[in-house]
């Protein structure tokens, strides 16, 4: 016979106002199996908990119900207290008579009856509660950082400085990401590369950090504390260990193609490093363009290479490495193809001369494709950057002239439900203000106009920065631009000033679009590889928008930077450090304790339809072969990995044969709970 204790809490007056707790306690004492009841003002207080522990010890209780607030509030409190008193914590259940009863009813009679029912249901349920033990899982104290931009660099450095072995996987040939492209950063106008490159070098030189540049995460298996990553090291055709980074090869390479790093504004050689400060300073050969690899012609780089480190036969290499935690910092891109909206669309990195007849036909308007002087924010950053293609002189792409009038258009693609994304891209107001300043500093007699919807400058020193931009000569016009057309050598910007209600036409030499920040094009694929959630835009979803902003939906995977939502650099760095703190907390123990409230499979009953495998959002269910005693194959069955299972219960609902049970919420428990409430349906 069960020895159940029921502890009814008055919660000051919170519960007692609409529930006669003494009456509930009396009713419970009459139930089968209940040997002890208490009715107390604050069960969660220190004396309340002492009373709870004392009752367990003295009466030898083997299960306890606390009729109080939501289990979200104090389930852990009472389970810990029970553990301290020598009772298995999973033999404690909460009957929620506050949020689900006293707070939502006015009538004391109704509240009392409902509290009785809720508590009785838990009494019947707890008779089927089994003592559960937490799982002890091993832990690999090595972290993987996916993405080598500022977020990944920050997280890796923080972790390495705390003594954690870190690997960074970066798909480009160099670390740096988008931040390395920026010329100067708001709101202090310090040079981006000057603050970025020392950190890149620090990463490179840190003994605990391994950089896998020009590599991609291909597959992830395992679970929190015990991940296994399959990393594809793309063939560089250059032997890392021998290369000195002297530069002979990329200087001599006779072929070229558009530079991705320079946003296609200039060409780069086929054997290349993306930018001079690249880390690691090992070039890669672009195998889609190299004539030696494609047609076995040329091979000049191998001839000039002193240390003989060029190997045209190199293949992709697969590395399998175990990790305990993963930080995802895959960053953002600017919304592609926004030029189309303004009639100035052109294929990326394509000058009009190179347009084929077919492409011309595909273009939306007759003069479209010729507005090469309409550029996006990152392209402007490269034009303004001292290390950029123009050496820091702002020259327009079409003819290289210094533009006298520049129009900046804010909110291109963002806050636009029809043609773009509905969210605010957040950083554009600030970087547009920065661009006007960079332009004014470079071209003193120039004139800059900003067409904006609203100015959003919430941040330390941000509002002041906008004011400074206006003081330095930028003319802000509140209104949208309807279209851009070519007028001689200039671009006619047709816009409106909604404050004066007048149409505004500006003849500009160059137009800069503050294009919306969107996730990387393959972010959904990355999310699926990692098994984490993502929203409709492709941003990775955090576990809780307020209280768990850096955790992904999967345990042990954390999110840093713009892959989670639009962010500026300070926020990105802060979030990256936050993920490092989370990883350190995870790594602070030698083993992991996992909640035992996970699903288990009755493998004999399992009919292997794999519906559970299809629905599991955590990839926690595997297909396993059952063998007989002679080792012969007998049948297939599902197996739930307790390290991965989060106890959501979706597999239970999908399983027709009722072969899966969620421990702590077994069919017997739930059935007993429901039937205790009772009532005939027909």
């Amino acid at each position: 016979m069960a020895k159940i204790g029921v502890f009814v809490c008055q919660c000051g007056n919170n519960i007692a106002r609409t529930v006669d707790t003494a009456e509930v306690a009396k009713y419970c004492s009459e139930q089968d199996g209940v040997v002890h009841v208490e009715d107390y003002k604050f069960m969660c207080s220190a004396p309340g908990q002492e009373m709870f522990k004392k009752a367990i010890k003295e009466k030898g209780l083997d299960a306890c119900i606390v009729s109080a607030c939501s289990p979200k509030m104090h389930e852990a409190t009472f389970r810990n207290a029970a553990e301290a008193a020598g009772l298995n914590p999973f033999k404690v259940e909460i009957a929620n008579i506050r949020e689900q009863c006293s707070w939502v009813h006015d009538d004391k009679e109704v509240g009392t009856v409902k509290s009785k029912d809720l508590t009785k249901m838990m009494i019947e349920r707890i008779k089927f509660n089994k003592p559960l033990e937490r799982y002890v899982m091993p832990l690999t104290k090595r972290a993987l950082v996916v993405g080598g931009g500022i977020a990944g660099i920050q997280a890796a450095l923080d972790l390495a400085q705390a003594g954690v072995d870190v690997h960074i996987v970066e798909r480009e040939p160099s670390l740096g990401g988008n931040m390395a492209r920026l010329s100067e950063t708001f709101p202090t106008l310090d040079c981006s590369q000057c603050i970025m490159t020392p950190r890149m070098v620090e990463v490179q030189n840190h003994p605990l950090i391994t950089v896998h540049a020009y590599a991609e995460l291909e597959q992830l298996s395992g679970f929190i504390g015990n991940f296994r990553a399959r990393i594809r090291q793309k063939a560089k055709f250059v032997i890392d260990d021998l290369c000195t980074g002297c530069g002979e090869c990329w200087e001599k390479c006779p072929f070229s193609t558009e530079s991705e790093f320079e946003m296609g504004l200039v060409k780069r050689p086929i054997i290349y490093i993306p930018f001079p400060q690249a880390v690691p300073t090992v070039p890669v050969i672009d195998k889609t363009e190299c004539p030696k690899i494609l047609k076995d012609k040329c091979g000049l780089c191998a001839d000039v290479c002193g240390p003989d480190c060029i190997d045209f036969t190199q293949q992709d290499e697969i590395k399998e490495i175990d990790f305990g935690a993963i930080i995802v910092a895959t960053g953002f891109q600017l919304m592609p193809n926004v030029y189309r909206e303004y009639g100035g669309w052109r294929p990326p990195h394509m000058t009009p001369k190179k347009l084929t007849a077919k492409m011309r036909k595909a273009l939306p308007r007759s003069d479209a494709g010729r507005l090469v002087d309409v550029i996006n924010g990152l392209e402007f950053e490269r034009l303004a950057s001292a290390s950029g293609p123009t050496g820091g002189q702002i020259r327009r792409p079409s003819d290289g002239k210094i533009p006298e009038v520049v129009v900046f258009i804010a909110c291109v693609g963002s806050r636009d439900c029809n043609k773009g994304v509905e969210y605010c891209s957040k950083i554009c107001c600030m970087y547009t203000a920065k661009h006007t300043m960079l332009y004014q500093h470079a071209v003193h007699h120039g004139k800059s106009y900003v067409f904006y919807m609203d100015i959003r400058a919430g941040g330390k020193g941000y509002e002041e920065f906008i004011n400074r931009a206006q003081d330095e000569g930028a003319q802000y016009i509140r209104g949208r631009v309807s279209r851009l057309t070519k007028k001689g050598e200039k671009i006619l910007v047709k816009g409106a000033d909604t404050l004066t209600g007048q149409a505004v036409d500006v003849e500009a030499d160059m137009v800069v679009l503050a294009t919306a920040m969107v996730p990387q094009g393959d972010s959904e694929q990355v999310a699926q590889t990692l098994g984490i959630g993502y929203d409709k835009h492709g941003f990775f979803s955090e576990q809780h928008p307020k209280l768990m902003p850096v955790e992904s939906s999967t345990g042990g995977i954390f999110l840093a930077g713009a892959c989670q939502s639009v962010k500026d650099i300070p926020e990105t760095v802060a979030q990256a450090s936050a993920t490092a703190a989370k990883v350190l907390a995870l790594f602070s123990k030698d083993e992991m304790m996992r909640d035992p409230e996970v699903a288990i499979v009755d493998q004999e009953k399992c009919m292997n339809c794999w519906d559970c495998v299809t629905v599991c959002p955590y990839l926690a269910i595997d297909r396993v072969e059952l063998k007989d005693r002679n080792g012969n194959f007998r049948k297939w069955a599902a197996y739930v990995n307790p390290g991965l299972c989060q106890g959501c219960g979706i597999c239970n609902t999908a399983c027709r044969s009722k072969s899966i049970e969620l421990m702590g919420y077994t069919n017997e428990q739930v059935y007993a709970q429901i039937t205790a409430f009772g009532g005939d349906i027909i």
Partner: protein
Amino acid sequence: MIEAIRNQARLLLENGDVDVVIGYAEGSDPSRTTPIFIRKAEDVEKLIYDPRCINSLPLYLNKRHEYTRKGWKKTAIIGKGCDIRAIVQLIAENQLKRDEIYILGVPCEGVVSHPEKWDGSLHDGNRASKCIGCDVMTPHETDFFPGDKPDVDRSTPYEATSKNVATLMELELDKRFAFWRTDFDRCFKCYACREVCPHCSCNTCITDETTPSWIDPAAHKKGVFSWHLTRAMHLVGRCTGCGECTRACPMGIQVDLFNQRMKEVVQESYSYKPGYSLEDKHPLITYKVDDREDFIK
């Protein structure tokens, strides 16, 4: 037509390509046919096919049944379109592998609704309701088909649901409930509907569960209602509409009305037709971004 099938079956058995051929043979009286398992090449002459062949043979491919445990590696099966839908669905649900079976497709002009209705020919008076508007009279997934297989447009919705469903849906809610109360009064829970269903593949049926006993085993209204509603829910997006449950019911309860209605709902809501794809999972366990959400109020 049947000669070509017999020859192919003979060839398969003689070459040892298959261990058994499941088909139809003459039954105990002229209006009936019986399923037959042929293991010797000389027996293939027994195979027949005509509108009396109403049994759903894929039932025997279901792992729940003894036949799959006889050690037969490869089975040839005569399939009319609706049965092949059931086979395809079994494969999609991982209850069967495509290379374990050899499908002998037959051109079908419809079958009778019940052997008792057979009067020597098939006509509108005795045709099974599932055959009206059928789009798999030329089967969709076969290994062998006598003659040429014409292209058929199968993009249209499922075959017409029986008129009885529409009639029932027109009734007021309480009248509809009254209909089922009277109809289910006759059910004594023999579970023929379950035993004949090619898709009921659980090792232990939920109705046989005892810890806890989700479905009251007694044949009172509560037990009967919870059984039939659970059965209907378990077949949502999976039922391929062979109509065997209604035919097998000794009390003449039209239990497949539920399934037909569910099939309509699934088709309308998710544009999903079970039994046409070897890979697609049914809509209740899959999520697509463009899934209908208008029922969430």
